[in-house]
Structure formats: C-alpha cells, structure tokens
C-alpha cells in the first residue's frame, strides 16, 4: 500500500517509520503516472519500507522544504534522515537497487 500524505503529516511519517520512500508527484505529470504503478508494486513487495506519495500541487511547504524543482522526485529516508534523492522516471530495477541501501 502507498500512503497518500500531506504537509501536515509528512514529518511524523518520516520519523515514526524506519525506512520511508516518498514519491513526489502531480496529476498532470506523465512520467509520474508512469512511475506510480512501479511504486505500488514495490510497496507490495517490500513490507519493511513505508511507501508514501505526496501531491506537490497541494503541498507547497514540502516542495520548498525539499527544494523540489522537477517531478517525479523520490525521497529516501532512513531513521528520519534523508539519504537519497532521485529525479525523473526510474525503472523498477534502479529503485530496487536504491532500496538495498536503506
């Protein structure tokens, strides 16, 4: 399952879970729509990681806090710390590799 989060609960999501991946997306973004089923699949295969998504059109605080300037952006957190960022559409294999580092 991928949790839809917002400016309000993003910080608690990051701190209350050991490993978190956040998919920053918008409805109008084609590559984001392409990434989203990949994230769904990864979420069902990796129970140890908490997968979230945040709509950047509705959550400006997150956009400015993480200086997002292109989507899709994936934010990888481990124990509350941002350890990796990817920008642009990635393949499932590429993301799997990055999950290993969490």
């Amino acid at each position, binding site marked *: 399952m991928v949790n839809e989060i917002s400016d309000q609960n993003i910080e608690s999501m990051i701190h209350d879970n050991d490993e978190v991946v956040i998919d920053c997306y*918008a409805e*109008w*973004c*084609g*590559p984001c*729509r*392409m990434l989203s089923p990949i994230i769904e699949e990864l979420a069902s295969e990796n129970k140890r990681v908490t997968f979230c998504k945040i709509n950047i*059109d509705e959550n400006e605080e997150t*956009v400015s806090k993480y*200086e*997002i*300037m*292109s*989507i899709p*952006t994936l934010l990888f957190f481990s124990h509350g710390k941002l350890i990796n960022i990817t*920008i*642009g*559409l990635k*393949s499932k*294999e590429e993301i799997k590799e990055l999950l290993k580092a969490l």
Partner: protein
Amino acid sequence: MYDAIVIGAGPAGLTSALYLGRANKKVLVLEAKNYGGQIINAYNIENYPGIKKINGYDFATNLYEQVESLGVDIIYEEVIKITKDKEVMTRNHTWKSKTIIIATGTTNRKLNLEGEDRFLGKGISYCATCDGAFFKGKEVAVCGGGNTALEDALYLTNIASKVYLIHRRDTFRGEDRYLEEIKDKHNIEIIVNTNIIGLEGEQSLKGLILKDQSGKTHHLDVQGLFIAIGQDPQSTLFKDILDMDANGYVQSADCLTKVSGIYVAGDVRSKELRQLTTAISDGSICANMAIKEMGDEVDGK
C-alpha cells in the same frame, strides 16, 4: 528466433509491434527506459488526426496496452549491440531475429557545460511544461532559437517573474508568430548573439555566465535554465553497420536501411518532419516491409 525485434517502445516502435502482433508474428520489443518515449511528457496532443485532445501519457498507455494484449514480448533491457546477421544483444541476453526495426528516437541535446548533469532537476530542465510550475515568481532563462525555445519562453511568462531568452545567433529559426507574441510580453528579455559558458550555484542553480559576440562575459542571476537547443539521434550503436546522415540520423529511404531486413522508424530516421503522426506512419511501414520480407500478407488486406 523472433520474426521481428523492435528496439525502442516509443510510438514508432509500438506501432510496428502492433502491426506485427496483429499479423501473428513472434515479436520482441526491447526498451531501455520506459514505454511511450518522449510523448509521455506531452501535456496535451491536439494534432493527432481523429483524436481532438489526449494527454501524452494516456496515448502512450493505450498504445502499450493495445500491443501487450497481442502477446508481444516486451523486455526492459538496453540494447548494446546489433549485427548484420540480426542478432540483438543486451548486457544479459543475445536474441536472434529474422528482422530488426530500429526505433530508438532522440534525446535532448545538452549544452555540455560543467555542472549540467548535477543541476538537472535542481534548476536545469529540458522540459518547460514538465518543470515550469516549480519556478513560480522566479527568474528563469530559456536557451535556444527554435520553436521549442520560443514556446517554452511563452509558457514560462505565465509562471516566472522574468524570462530571459538566450540565443547564440541574432535570428530565430522559430516561427514569427511566436516571436511577435514574445515581443508583446513585458516580462521576456531577449538576449541574442550570446552563449552560455558557465553555470553557477552550490546545491542548485543560481546563475549563468554569458559571453557575447565581442567576447565580453557577464553574470546573470536565474534560478532556472530551460535548455531547448534541439535533439540528438540515439544512433551510435548502429554506426558500424548502417549509414548516418550529417547530423547522425540513420540514413533511409522509405524506412529501409542499407542492410536488408533492418528497418528504421520514427525520430531516429533521417527525415523532414518529426512528429507523432510521422513516427506512427514509419512504424506501420516498417512492420509492413518486415512482414513482406517474411513472405506473408499484411494485416488489413
């Protein structure tokens, strides 16, 4: 042994696969990244005959599902070599086929500046409609002189506080109607005869170093740079066995190459007009020729 291997799952490649699949051929589509190619970035397609308006992602996904339902094999691996004997190699596999259809498309041309990759998604973008929204109220630059650059500049005037349009020549290749529109906008400044020679910033882009015709350099503060200086064909893999034109596009007449049984479709082919309609046209022509090469009737007859 496949009847056909299609390299690239953009509109041209998928159309080939669609025609081949409908003719009950054994088809493999190889794709290095994602299906759909560059069309997935199109917010709206409004010049495809018979469809008034469709989002690029929806178009690509419909086409992909159409192909998938025919039982075509689609594998996400990057092709690293092909031979005249119609062998296709990826890092992990080698496949043999009766025919090959090359539909690898193009990629955004880079300025080749220090930091260009590092600032990608941190101020540098090759797609104004994709990333423009993040530059609300900020100062940005667009680099280029063709229609894409002019369209990008116009699009960004509605978002950014100021748009600099930087072009290395003094005349624009883009259409006059766009230039007229640009001249009416109060927040676009055109800078001609100027090259971008440097990028500045730590975590993200903060400014550009410009060099004008006289050789004088100066600094320009911007938080975004949209690069629209054209496309480059993804054809280097094929240069040993096929002919290329002066710009590196695969030389072809009617989608044929100099190797029998190897065809080329879409943006990677040398041609006049690179559009969705012509990509799809190429894709169907290639499939038709490949099927004939196999000695069979074509679908729809």
